[in-house]
């Protein structure tokens, strides 16, 4: 199963990159857009066909290693296509 993990700065955590990008957007004339937050994407393949099993395993990976719960939130998608 293909997994895509999205890691984002927690609400309330200052994201200086997001602030700089927001300023850049404004300077380039892209009006009406704000609240920029920069995160990261982690792709991996989990060797199982069972969605619940995959989900439990990815949650465990995120909580122990892939993210730091003090500063980051995460979501992920599961894709069964080969």
């Amino acid at each position, binding site marked *: 199963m293909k997994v895509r993990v999205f890691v984002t700065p927690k609400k309330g*955590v*200052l994201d*200086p*990159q997001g602030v700089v990008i927001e300023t850049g957007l404004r300077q380039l004339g892209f009006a009406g857009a704000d609240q920029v937050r920069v995160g990261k994407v982690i792709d991996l393949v989990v060797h199982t066909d069972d969605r619940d099993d995959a989900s439990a395993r990815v949650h465990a990976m995120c909580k122990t*290693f*892939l993210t*730091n719960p*003090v*500063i980051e939130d995460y979501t992920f998608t599961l894709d069964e296509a080969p």
Partner: protein
Amino acid sequence: MKVGIVVFPGSNCDRDTEHAFEKVLGVGVERLWHKDSDIKGVDAIVLPGGFSFGDYLRTGAVARFSPIMESVADFAARGGRVLGICNGFQILLEAGMLPGAMLPNRSLRFICRDVMVRVEQTGAPVVSKLRQGQLLRIPVAHYEGNWFCDDETLARVEAEGLPVLRYCDATGLVSDATNLNGSRNNIAGLRNAAGNVVGMMPHPERCAEPALGGIDGRALLEGLLS
């Protein structure tokens, strides 16, 4: 007296730290390789600065799973003294041995210069040779030194008196303007509740002898062994 200095792939202040303890303070040193789990009977352990594992994923995130870290955690749980400097501080945070986490500096710049820090307390061995309120001039060199935690944790950290160093100016003023990197409450160094584990972003090993332009770091290293 023997100090153990943990060496991870990417550590780059390990030899400076060794020099400071061995040549300046005249203390025996053991290098502790990250893949080993034997701490060789040392009396205190330093996690040195650097870029362990290339700072991949997050600073300190990979190093905390090194075999040696389990022994370091056991050593600390038995009351053993552990000092994390810069990347070592980041590793202690990732390992959950100190509260909070590191964010990139508010300025998004790598900051490499001398800074002023104020000694907040003397309740941990590392700061036991200093006076409360004493000002130290110590070099920093980091991109991710912006210490962060949520409001609830910050209240507990302050209530328990865990901050040991705060960024300030030459007069000792601690304010947002003297906050080097955006750390909550200007915190530059922290201890655990028992006081035996301390982490700090400034590099005391880089200013422990006159030849390096300053000696303010020396008392912190001596304190670890006091």
